[in-house]
């Protein structure tokens, strides 16, 4: 199980990193989304993964997983939506301003 989670984090990070190194805004945003997934799963998994033990208190439960990383990740997911939205808007603004969605400045700089 751990191997699956770890490899998933690794692959999502790889794809995310590859995409943020592209030259257009859209792949960069998608890449950041991928990195967000990877980060969230990473932090979540730092509480160690276990199936079937949700942190919902009850008399019948045999144990609970660590609730702390979950609380951290929950807000992180929502914040990453906010971040993505801001980036999308920036990309749109840049696109309308410049006519394309390149992320690099030209040689002489684009003002």
């Amino acid at each position, binding site marked *: *199980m*751990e191997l*699956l*989670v770890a*490899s*998933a984090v*690794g*692959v*999502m*990070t*790889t*794809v995310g*990193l*590859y*995409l*943020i*190194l*592209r030259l257009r*805004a*859209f792949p960069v945003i*998608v890449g950041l*989304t991928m990195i967000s*997934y*990877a980060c*969230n*799963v*990473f932090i*979540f*998994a*730092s*509480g160690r*993964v276990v*199936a079937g*033990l949700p*942190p*919902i*208190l009850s008399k019948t439960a045999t144990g*609970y*997983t660590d*609730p702390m990383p*979950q*609380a951290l*990740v*929950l*807000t992180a*997911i*929502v914040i990453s*939506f*906010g*971040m*993505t939205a*801001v980036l999308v*808007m920036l*990309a*749109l*603004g840049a696109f*309308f*301003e410049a006519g394309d969605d390149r992320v690099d*400045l*030209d040689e002489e700089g684009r003002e």
Partner: protein
Amino acid sequence: MSPALIAALPFLGALLPGLLIRVSRTACATVTGSVTLLALIGLGLHIPAVLRGEVITARFDWLPMLGLNATFFLDGLGLLFAGLILGIGLLIILYARFYLSDRDPMGQFYTYLMLFQGAMVGIVLSDNILLLLVFWELTSLSSFLLIGYWKHLPEGRQGARMALTVTGGGGLAMIAGMLILGQIAGSFDLTVILQHKAEIQASDWYLPALILILLGAFTKSAQFPFHFWLPHAMAAPTPVSAYLHSATMVKAGIFLMARMWPVLAGTPEWFWIVTSAGLFTMVMAAKIAFFKDDLKALLAFSTVSHLGLITMLLGFGTKAAATVAVFHIINHATFKAALFMSAGIVDHEAHTRDIKRLGGLRHLMPITFTIATVAGLSMAGIPPFNGFLSKEMMLEEAAHTAPWVIPALAVIGALFSVAYSFRLVAHTFLGPVRDDYPHKPHDPGFGMWASPALLAVLVVLIGLMPMTFAGWLVDAAAGAVTGDTVHAHIKHWHGLESPALWMSLFAIGGGLVLLGLHAPFDRIWLAFPRPEAKRIFDTVIEAFAALTARVNRRLHSGALGQYLAVATLAILAGGVWAFQTGTHSPGTRSLQEIEPVAAAGWFALMVASFGVALMHRQRLLTLVLIGVIGLIVSVGFAYLSAPDLALTQISVEVATVILMLLSLNFLPKYTPAVSSTARKTRDWIIAGAGGLGVGTLIYALMLRDFAFPTIADYHLANAKALGGGTNVVNVILVDFRGYDTFGEITVLGIAATLIFALTETILRPGPANDRLRNWKSDTPDAGDRHPLMMVVATRMMLPIALLVGIYIFLRGHNVPGGGFIAGLVVAIALVMQYMASGFGWTAARQKIDYHGLIGAGVLIAAATGIGSWFAGRPFMTSNYGYFHIGPLEEFELATAALFDLGVFLTVLGAVMLALSSLTRIAVRAGQTTNIEAFDMQDKLEPGPGAEAEVK
């Protein structure tokens, strides 16, 4: 009144002018003055105690671990300076009321002035040197605002910048010096440091600390070679000059030297550095002042000269000299503030400050003439005014100091001082009345001359009866400086055998001769080139700016990919280094079995991830795959015992994909192939290395047990007892870590507002807006944009979706759900209406403003947090209870639910604001919006929204 409150009052008072300026200018000035008066009265109440030798203290722990505490103390020196700052501040507030013209924003002026006043009072009352540094920097910042108050004048802006650069730079040096001093003494409390003279002076670090602290003091007090900023700061309005350069800002450096005098003074290093800087500054500035034609420039250089005089006295290191220094601080503040204000009156009435264009004003402005003459003669050191007393005492001290060059130069400085003081009075006020003034001058109203007149009265009173009007204050302040009981004997006549008498007479005689020869000397002075401090300063600054620009161009090439590649590799290298140098133990946790369903999900994730990477140029397809990945991640969360995360992830996923789809409406649908194979290979290597590192790290982490006891147990054990909920994740969010959540929803609200602001920017007239209005879709519209089935289905579903949202919200405290998820679910339900029925139709029915939702959410969450104060508990402590109403089952009510409501509203508002902003862009791009329920062809029109937007 506590010293802390005295320091805090001006800061509180700074809030008032901005409000009261709406009432009237007089109300604004009155209230500002009242606050200062209140602080002054509070200070005055302590006078008897301080004169008895008591020290009044106030202490608040701020960051005790860093040694930074808000500790204040009031002793004789603090009393003297705080009295000057508040007293002259009060006079300046009165004077500025009449000096500032109707065009000047008076509210701003008083706000800056009060900020500055508070910072100054803070410096002189601080007992903690770190706190003192905070106030020290605040004076640099607020004086920047004051000097640059006339923003429209380039001289004002440049002068302000120069003052900030020089004094701020010195402040940085002083921070280092103070830290060293604190380390030597083992405490950052002044009262403690002052008792460690022997250790400090014996330390190897004494000289570096001394030089660094003196750098701070010399820059602030405009000592050579840092004197050049002060004359340029004269571009400020005269009330500012009068305040900053008579009693406050430039005296801060003097204050610091006096404050540190007991531990720093008395060594040869101190004597030579401080005395020579002071002496040289005094003579040089006095000479320049003699040749200045601008009244304020003359006064500026004379201020520099007098500061040099005080510095020199402190440098002597003897108790008698320090006492004279304290006395001269009082005298200089009185006559110099009066002179500055008089110069301001002349400028205000005659519309020029150029001495060569003035003269004869004695007949036209008798009141101003009287004030300026009294103050000017005092500055020259003519009996019986107060300047005479301290100058005699200064010469007396200099005469007893070796080597001989010190008294000789002191006399020359005094001689120039006589010359420029007389020139100021004679060439401005005496002589025949001219007929070519830029404006016919006359005396101003009472309000304007009241302040300088009062100071002139003080000049005379202290001069005539020094022991009655100043002796007690000098004793108290000098006692605090020297740490010894001081009984100053200030008198006019020291006897014929006193060297000071002859030195003084020589200075007066020589000064008069020099004044008579002003015209020929002036021609010589003008004929020779002089080093222009501003040009040198500008050259140095420009060189630095060029260097920075060069470095920046290299580092900041504009290629985002380069930065990110460098950052990734640097982080990776850091990780490898940490791995190489750290110690590791093998993992002890056993691996869990892989179930087939998990393996299937993993496989789908792999396919989708690599699919995204390989087919990212087809953007729509990428979005579909991103949706798949998000879905599997959320299912994974559910599988791995995180139901709340699963619910959040899936609803965020929907919102994110909708958002990206909306943006793809405009952005190109395909990414062009521009990267070379080499570049792609390089990027794959970097990305692969990063992914491998992260994957290995989390794998290693999961194989090992926690290095420290986890805090999870505490939360699990207390969620029900303290937070009243069984869903531990939700209890953590709204209760244990409620403060974090509060911060997070605030950030979310800010992000949404930012999106709105960006949209406004795009929609503003400009190239982006032009492109938007001429935008042509590169894909044809769907034939049926609002399919009947979808419209009906979404309408049917809306109440159900809202009910589900409410249900998820209510149950959140005990089972998976809560404000975050409910907010997302309701947002998606509403977005569905936009999608199905169109923007125009939905917007017309949407009564609630999304900004309002965000604001209300944050405010409700904050109010819930504050509510716990009324129950006598810390911020954000939740409370809950069980209630029974009528036929309903017993149910629980928790204040945390109210907090969660705030979360809900903020999330809902933020998501909706983000998505509707994108829609507004679409409307501007000419997309039709329907106003009728269904999308009949004949009802289609460019939406009313579009027209409204254009306007």
